[in-house]
């Protein structure tokens, strides 16, 4: 018996299977080569690049207004936040700042994105562990957020709403009312989330003590976002390096010390509540005024290097622009959260079962285009 000409067993008697690139639980085209001893994982080797589009190279020939749109396609679940990061970097280069109204709307949009991303993650997390129903419950609230997005930004998934100097156009008149309705609905339904999954015995058995990541390893592997905060590593960019006026808001950075899948799960569950808290503070206090600073038609960044980071739903996204003074970036680097988080997968999955691998991947919350770029 052989597949693709490979021997069935390695010399050490290990069984090699390829999980992906087409697999129900890799959430995209991730390819993991897994060495198994029975059901126990000996080694995991991620093979990337199935959706590598070289966005960094593309951006080198795009203007400072255009390259932002490519980033919506990176981490498509946090498109707003990706755009925000790019807009902020360009603003940093130009030495301007978005008007207060634009900043407030940016925060609202970013937090709505975070909420919807975490809801999708929650549904998929349940699905990955074999419970199908959470998927539909997670999508219920996500759908109402998507409708708000659609009304204001004109798109549901790859919104291109943030531009250098502010936002592209003002919010829809219904925006505030609809967001309030969504918040009401979400707050009522948080209880359902907990009832369906959080307290379940099987769920706790599947996640507690699985995929342990120590704080030292989390830092060393460059993990950020809920993946690192589940290990007790403080890394919330919104607190460490506030942007767009996050420093004026009341919210907590969620830290869990478990370091296992359950801790990462709890971090995201609590983060949803923090996002709701942030939106509640902002929704009635959107300042009046311009939604965009006046900028030149052709943007040119001065010669130099600019680095800006933001907190996406998955962790720290860094945008590093090297400018030679031309109308398009000389070199652009996206330090994507998933790329670093994925590198810790092998460490976490060693010695676990196949079922655990799925749970670990679910709690890292991988978005493959963000890994491959």
């Amino acid at each position, binding site marked *: 018996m052989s597949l693709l000409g490979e021997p069935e067993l390695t010399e050490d008697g290990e069984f090699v299977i390829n999980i992906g690139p087409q697999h129900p639980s890799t959430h995209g085209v991730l390819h993991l080569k897994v060495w198994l001893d029975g059901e126990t994982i000996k080694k995991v080797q991620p093979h990337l690049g199935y959706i590598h589009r070289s966005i960094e190279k593309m951006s080198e020939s795009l203007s400072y207004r255009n390259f932002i749109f490519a980033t919506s396609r990176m981490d498509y679940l946090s498109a707003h936040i990706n755009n925000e990061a790019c807009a902020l970097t360009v603003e940093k280069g130009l030495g301007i700042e978005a008007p207060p109204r634009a900043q407030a709307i940016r925060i609202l949009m970013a937090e709505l994105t975070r909420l919807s991303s975490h809801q999708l993650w929650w549904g998929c997390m349940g699905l990955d562990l074999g419970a199908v129903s959470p998927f539909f419950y997670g999508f219920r609230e996500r759908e109402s957020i998507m409708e708000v997005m659609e009304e204001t930004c004109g798109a549901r998934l790859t919104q291109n709403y943030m531009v250098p100097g502010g936002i592209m156009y003002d919010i829809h008149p219904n925006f505030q009312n609809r967001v309030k309705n969504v918040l009401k609905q979400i707050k009522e339904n948080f209880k359902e989330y907990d009832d369906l999954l959080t307290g379940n015995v099987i769920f706790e058995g599947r996640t507690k003590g699985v995929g342990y990541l120590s704080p030292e390893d989390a830092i060393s592997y460059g993990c950020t976002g809920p993946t690192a905060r589940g290990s007790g590593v*403080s890394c919330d960019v919104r607190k460490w390096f506030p942007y767009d006026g996050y420093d004026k808001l009341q919210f907590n950075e969620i830290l869990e010390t478990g370091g296992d899948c359950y801790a990462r799960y709890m971090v995201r569950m609590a983060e949803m509540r923090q996002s709701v808290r942030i939106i509640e503070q902002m929704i009635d206090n959107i300042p009046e005024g311009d939604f965009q600073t006046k900028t030149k038609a052709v943007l040119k960044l001065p010669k130099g290097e600019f*680095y800006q980071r933001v907190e996406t739903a998955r962790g720290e996204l860094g945008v590093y622009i090297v400018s030679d003074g031309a109308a398009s970036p*000389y070199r652009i680097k996206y330090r994507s959260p998933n*790329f670093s988080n*994925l590198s810790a997968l092998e460490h976490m999955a060693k010695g676990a079962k196949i079922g655990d691998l799925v749970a670990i991947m679910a709690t890292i919350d991988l978005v493959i285009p963000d890994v491959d770029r």
Partner: protein
Amino acid sequence: MTTEELKLSVATLFPAATFDETGEFLNVMVNLPEFRNVMKTLRHNSELSFDSLFCLTCIDWKTHLMMVYHMISKQHRHVLVIKVKLDNTVKPEIETVCDIWKTANFHEREVFDLFGVNFKNHPDMRRIMLDDNWDGFPLRKNYVDENMISL
């Protein structure tokens, strides 16, 4: 530590390093031979203790390549950028740092894949994104892809 203090302590540790303060962070230019030693010291020196390497990339300046390492200390909350100039653009080589920061493993493979910089002593120096028998290094400025469609 403020930028001034940071500059002072780095300067005392490595007299050969040169500084550039035009950007947001303190940039330190390091020579290739003492690079690995610098990185080890930055990681393990208790005053500096840069425990997180959050960005590792390369810039192609046509005449030379420039490795850029962004690092932060979670403990002291200071950021430092280390830059290393690689003059050999045909076969650029540099020591790996992936035993100092594990995150460098993937990032160095990415730089190898897209810039062709070879990292000495890296445990798994293969292409990470592209096909194993891909020709050329896409992020180099002299890379030409005859199949590329201009937008």
